[in-house]
């Protein structure tokens, strides 16, 4: 996973509530057995005027000029400003893979769906939850100011606007630690907890043997 420390990035506003993961990356692209290459199909149904299919050359497709990410002023945006309940619906991790592959590193919204929230942090994305009024204010500012950039500092947990205003944000300490260091949490779990897992498992097996079918655990 890519580490995230600080990012000064152009902001793209996506002004709709309840953006679901089907919209972020439609199902036909979920047939891939890879983790990368989803960026060109991010928001496929909004971005293009035709129906997309896997393996297509997206540079030849008719684009929807109305869609925010197709507007030149938001080209190379790395901060996505969104509305409430962003990432709801399907648990597909292809959604954060597509956002990351497209170039986003930060998403700001009043609220996120739980599974998406988990998935995003595991892929080097920083999700920032701000109150609705602040998000409204940022939407106004982005609309009024071309090339609006935010300076997002994970270490200090602050966002600095072009006017020099700073907005504090909360982040779960464990997620912050993993993100700052680009840590794979499987490695962490195995190093710190293998013994505890084995002990738990032995007790669990003794008290509820019906939960186990094999004779002995096939432990790593």
């Amino acid at each position, binding site marked *: 996973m890519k580490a995230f420390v600080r990012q000064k990035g152009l902001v793209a506003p996506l002004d*709709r*509530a*309840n953006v*679901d993961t*089907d*919209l972020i990356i*439609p*199902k*036909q692209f*979920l*047939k891939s*057995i*890879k*983790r990368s290459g989803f960026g060109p199909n991010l928001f496929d*149904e909004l971005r293009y005027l035709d*129906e997309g299919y*896997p393996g297509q050359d997206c540079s030849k497709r008719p684009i929807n000029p109305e869609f925010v990410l197709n507007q030149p002023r938001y080209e190379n945006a790395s901060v996505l400003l969104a*509305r*409430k*309940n962003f990432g*709801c*619906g*399907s*648990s*597909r*991790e292809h959604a*954060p893979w597509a956002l990351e592959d497209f170039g986003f590193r930060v998403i700001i919204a009043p*609220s996120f769906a*739980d*599974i998406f929230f*988990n*998935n995003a942090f*595991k*892929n080097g994305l920083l999700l920032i939850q701000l109150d609705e009024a602040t998000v409204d204010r940022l939407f106004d500012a982005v609309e009024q100011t071309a090339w609006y950039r935010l300076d997002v500092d994970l270490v200090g947990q602050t966002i600095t606007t072009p006017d020099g205003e700073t907005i504090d944000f909360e982040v*779960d*300490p*464990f997620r912050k630690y993993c993100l700052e260091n680009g840590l*794979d949490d*499987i*490695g962490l*779990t*195995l190093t710190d*907890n293998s013994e*505890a*897992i084995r002990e*738990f*498992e032995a007790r*669990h097996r003794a*008290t*509820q*043997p*019906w*939960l*186990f*079918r*094999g004779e002995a*655990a*096939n*432990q*790593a």
Partner: protein
Amino acid sequence: MAAQTLYDKLWASHLVSSRDDGTSLIYIDRHLLHEVTSPQAFEGLRLANRRPWRIDANIATADHNVPTSLKERSAGIEGIEDNVSRIQVQTLDDNTTSFGIETFGINDVRQGIVHIIGPEQGATLPGMTVVCGDSHTATHGAFGALAHGIGTSEVEHVLATQCLIQRKMKNMQVRVEGQLGPHVTAKDIVLAIIGEIGTAGGTGYAIEFAGSAIRDLSMEGRMTICNMAIEAGARVGLVAVDDTTIDYVKGRPFAPTPEQWDAAVDNWRSLVSDDDAAFDKVVTLDAASIEPQVSWGTSPEMVVGVHDSVPDPAQAADDTTRRGITRALEYMGLHAGQKITDIKLDRVFIGSCTNARIEDLRAAAAVVKGRQVAGTIKQAMVVPGSGLVKRQAEQEGLDQVFREAGFEWREAGCSMCLAMNADKLGAGEHCASTSNRNFEGRQGYGGRTHLVSPAMAAAAAVAGHFVDVREFVDTPVPTRRAAGL
């Protein structure tokens, strides 16, 4: 000890370790795998040179993009015509074979939608933690199991460590009290709940469904309700264990052995919220006032009773909602004030992990028996949730009822619920669907989904538009002569 909710108990009994900041390691008893969200996890394991921690905790099946036509299916994986789908299904098979994970292959009668086959096999048991790389894993909570969907990184984490890094959720109780009206089903209850609390209403919570109307439901109905907890924003839905739960589990292939049975039942009896347990939020609904529900928009919360009309954006509480309604009406090709019963349909889909169990098929068959799918409907299909559901339905003659009425009778899989295979809507087509998501493009590019119960879908198939199934079933079944046959 302080009074605990069912969720508190399940959490405590699976807690391996926990950090000061609340980040905890939870032990996972059952891991279900399917072809779409697992390939990258297996690849990750291999790259890091890791092995699965406990093979026997895992069960796999292909469901999301398997074809449902007998022609393609009878030839096994080789017969899948879509190249990309075939590679994905083959990859699952290769991965589970190489790691020795039990798999129900696409021609195994036990194959089906993961959330249907887990309970059917007794692989989902009360008191378990159950995860799967699929958000509708909430379904398994109907057994008093702590079950939720995870992403692919977490699939890999569970494979490698048998644990998941979690933070404890808050407790919500949704009480549904009283008696449901005739032909009003679990699906209508859960749609009404989502209509009430919204698609983000349950975010951050584990929802326990309680109250007399929930107690009165069969396990199948309880699964339908827990299945859609995620559409209310909650990763976890739960129903406390009672005799209904225990009777359902008994004798299933993965259930406790006869020697273990009594101890297991003793343990399961404690899987209820204590009387004085505190919930962070409580919502109450009156079962008797729930009407058959129909979704009109592009989010499951955009739902009303069958006698209602499509809402007017002008009446919305705030700007974001107003824009949401306007956009949904445009996408759905509906106008404010339009009566739900005036919505004409092009296709009907009876299936999905929400409503493709035997009871669902019985309910739909009872409505269509002796009737005909309307001539204006391009396609009406029934896709059983598993090979075993299909077999059972055929033994009961339900396939004949559907076929005679003009429905297609398919092989098990997710099918048009998410249209990853060939079963999909055309642009602009309206579909009465027993699935769980009416998102834009979910059932096909430009397709328009209306979520309903199996009985409502069946009645709509015959009428060609939405009708109140309660009134519909009282209309006489046409004689063969009157039907022009």
